[in-house]
């Protein structure tokens, strides 16, 4: 087992991770050694599938927008579960981040006078979504990855799968990782870390997210005593392509697209008479599914019910300029031309509002609110929380960039205040060696009678789709929990591949092993929350209950079991009110 030393480890290479790296590199004046560990090639993280844009108040004097309005929209969109102090940080830093990204070369779409263009988005009361056509995530990702190349003290480790966080006496000490390309097991010893591993969309079958968005790192964190917050809030994006689940950006509706049922009716007028198609995602997703349940959807040959996303009235020029990728994706993967037919869409799992329990500044916390010294989390992996029970579209890219920067800067400062990194003591090396044995000796041998990771994942997807979907019910969830607990008893997997170099079979087993725990966190949190709020909707408790449930769910592991506790929501300005759109 090779031991590598870096001051700062950034786990995950999406927008949050890359931004943390550039922020730390600059803030430290090149004096600290930074490693980015990515389980895939670092420029391929799922952030690049983001399409529609990044929210920020850029030109308040020209648009009558304000930080306060952005904050209010976000809090209302969150169904009042967001922490309002964190939201304040988001809206203040987002414009600075858009301008930073502009200076490093993001090809923002421009107005004729050179200003950065902004488009309307769901739940935003003013057009404030900054974009680069409909490949915003791709352009930010690729530009940020390029930007890391500027710094000699940023070291990129492609295809290094982190298997364990090492935390001793409440302090982060490093991680172990499986280097797929070389087939080696490594211990990365460090002073500080940023967890930026993204979401967990692949817990479900029908999802917009990449195959790599499996979320096991959150479960690994849970195993080391880190708490997970508000994980029951899973966002269904209203418009995913049928039958693949590929994202059709909210930008399609932001640019004026309609949703129609099989009678050709713009049904959103029944659900959100003012905002129509640009209501927040939780509301639009439930509206589409309600149309389907009441027989007004279309039927796809795959058996899926869907509605039409109609762009025909937008005209070819606008479509080609503003949303060309949507046209391409619909043509390639659904075989339709958006100029002549509506796009077949239905809701798909898109985002996890919950994540690692952190404070406003992204410091990683245990269930009793103690900071794990030296450790931060940022982006979708973290629950700061700015999205509460429902995230507004285009707030995630802002969040990733803002907290990537903030955590990177804090980590750099923390590292410079510590004595130089020595050699790891025997105790942590022992932990790393034990982990190597678990992965290479225990997991990597043919357990003939065990299920394959794919069988387990299929069952897991079935359970999540059936029991923890957009419409939940106590009795169905109780059944689901029993199934999940049974699945968790699977303690070994049949790993057929016995090689060490690029053993995806082993990697898949490691992923599924974490996914089950994370699914259970979602399930237990959802079952316990006896109300409907944002994306968490219960048929048996269809109303929001601010008296009992205006609080964050905090899950932690105790004696091998997942337990829950709750923390209050920070309210600085806006008391909960009824959400109308």
């Amino acid at each position, binding site marked *: 087992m090779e031991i590598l030393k870096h001051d700062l480890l950034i786990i995950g290479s999406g927008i949050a991770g890359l931004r943390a790296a550039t922020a730390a590199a600059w803030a430290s004046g090149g004096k600290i050694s930074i490693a980015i560990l990515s389980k895939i090639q670092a420029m391929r993280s799922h952030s690049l599938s983001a399409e529609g844009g990044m929210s920020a108040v850029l030109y308040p004097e020209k648009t009558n927008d304000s930080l306060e309005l952005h904050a209010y929209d976000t809090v209302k969109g969150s169904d009042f579960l967001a922490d309002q102090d964190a939201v304040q940080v988001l809206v203040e830093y987002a414009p600075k981040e858009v301008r930073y990204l502009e200076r490093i070369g993001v090809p923002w779409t421009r107005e004729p006078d050179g200003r950065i263009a902004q488009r309307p988005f769901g739940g935003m009361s003013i057009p404030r979504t900054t974009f680069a056509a409909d490949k915003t995530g791709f352009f930010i990702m690729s530009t940020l990855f390029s930007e890391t190349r500027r710094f000699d003290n940023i070291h990129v480790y492609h295809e290094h799968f982190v298997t364990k966080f090492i935390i001793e006496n409440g302090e982060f000490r490093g991680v172990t990782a499986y280097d797929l390309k070389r087939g080696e097991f490594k211990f990365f010893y460090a002073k500080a870390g940023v967890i930026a591993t993204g979401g967990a969309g692949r817990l479900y079958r029908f999802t917009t997210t990449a195959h*790599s968005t499996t979320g096991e790192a959150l479960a690994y964190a849970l195993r080391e005593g880190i708490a997970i917050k508000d994980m029951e809030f899973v966002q269904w994006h209203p418009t995913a392509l049928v039958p693949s689940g590929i994202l059709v950006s909210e930008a399609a509706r932001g640019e004026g697209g309609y949703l129609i049922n099989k009678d050709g009716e713009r049904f959103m007028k029944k659900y959100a008479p003012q905002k129509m198609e640009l209501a927040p995602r939780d509301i639009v997703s439930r509206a589409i599914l309600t149309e389907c349940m009441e027989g007004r959807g279309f039927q796809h040959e795959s058996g899926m019910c869907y509605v039409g996303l109609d762009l025909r009235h937008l005209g070819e020029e606008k479509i080609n300029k503003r949303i060309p990728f949507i046209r391409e994706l619909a043509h390639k993967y659904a*075989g339709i031309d958006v100029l002549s037919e509506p796009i077949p869409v239905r809701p798909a799992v898109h985002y996890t509002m919950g994540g690692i329990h952190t404070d406003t500044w992204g410091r990683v916390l245990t269930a009793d609110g103690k900071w794990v010294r030296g450790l931060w989390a940022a982006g979708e992996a973290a629950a700061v929380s700015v999205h509460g029970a429902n995230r507004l579209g285009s707030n995630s890219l802002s969040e990733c960039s803002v907290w990537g920067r903030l955590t990177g800067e804090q980590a750099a400062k923390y590292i410079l205040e510590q004595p130089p990194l020595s050699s790891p003591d025997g105790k942590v090396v022992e932990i790393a060696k034990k982990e190597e044995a678990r992965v290479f000796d225990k997991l990597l041998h043919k357990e003939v009678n065990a299920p394959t990771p794919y069988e387990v994942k299929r069952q897991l997807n079935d359970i999540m789709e059936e029991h923890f979907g957009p419409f939940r019910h106590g009795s169905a969830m109780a059944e689901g929990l029993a199934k999940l607990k049974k699945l968790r008893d699977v303690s070994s997997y049949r790993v057929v591949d016995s090689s060490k170099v690029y053993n995806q079979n082993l990697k898949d087993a490691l992923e599924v092993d974490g996914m089950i725990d994370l699914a259970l966190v979602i399930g237990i949190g959802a079952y316990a929350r006896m109300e409907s709020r944002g994306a968490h909707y219960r048929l048996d408790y269809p109303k929001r209950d601010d008296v009992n449930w205006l609080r964050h769910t905090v899950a932690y592991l105790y004696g091998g079991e997942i337990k829950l506790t709750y923390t209050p929501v920070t309210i600085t300005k806006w008391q909960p009110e009824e959400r109308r759109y």
Partner: protein
Amino acid sequence: MKSLVVKVKRFDGSKTWWQEYKVDISSEKISVLDVLIKIKEEQDPTLAVRYSCRMAICGSCGMVINGIPRLACQTLISELGDSKITVEPMWNHEVVKDLVVDLEPDFEKVKAVKPYILRDTKEIYESDVEFGQRPEDLEKYYNFAYCIQCGICMAACPILGSNPKFLGPMALNAAYRWSADSRDRGWNARRAVIDAEDGVWPCHLAYTCSAVCPRGVDPGFSIQLLKSAILRRRARP
């Protein structure tokens, strides 16, 4: 239900062999990647394939399918018009395992052309201004910024087949994209890297790079634009 025969060129670190898989599919509107994942999950978990987004934007799944380098997720069975599919790893790259190749040398070449805005770095990190860009300036480099670094152009380049030191279309396209950006001041620094023996000059305009690019980037054209800027001694491309 349709039956496919998928022939995969495999490599396990010491030996290379062709393996055939029979796969039943219910629709032809699925991608070659979908088929390969089906093989991995249902028949042979030892098969190594790099993939992630499945929507032709992450650049993971470049491989040679029926003789043409392309993205597996962007290649539908219906487009191949054949129930026999041959899949091999990308050419001009060292194979790690099966369909997975080592792209890190490509990434190092991109790094060599300084793929970022070159000007006073303090301006970038310590100011809060927009550098600004008019729409017509954006158009100068926009299409070249679509590169997803999948390596497919590098696999198709005939020059790289005989001269691995050639910077190649991926890195040279990056050199153009960044130099043509109105916010950049780095042309002189990049010209020093590319106006060299293994820089732009080995390119002999086969344009296979542009023909195979899954994002329509046209790196062949960016290489010619670079040559033109060098020969005309222009202040920037």
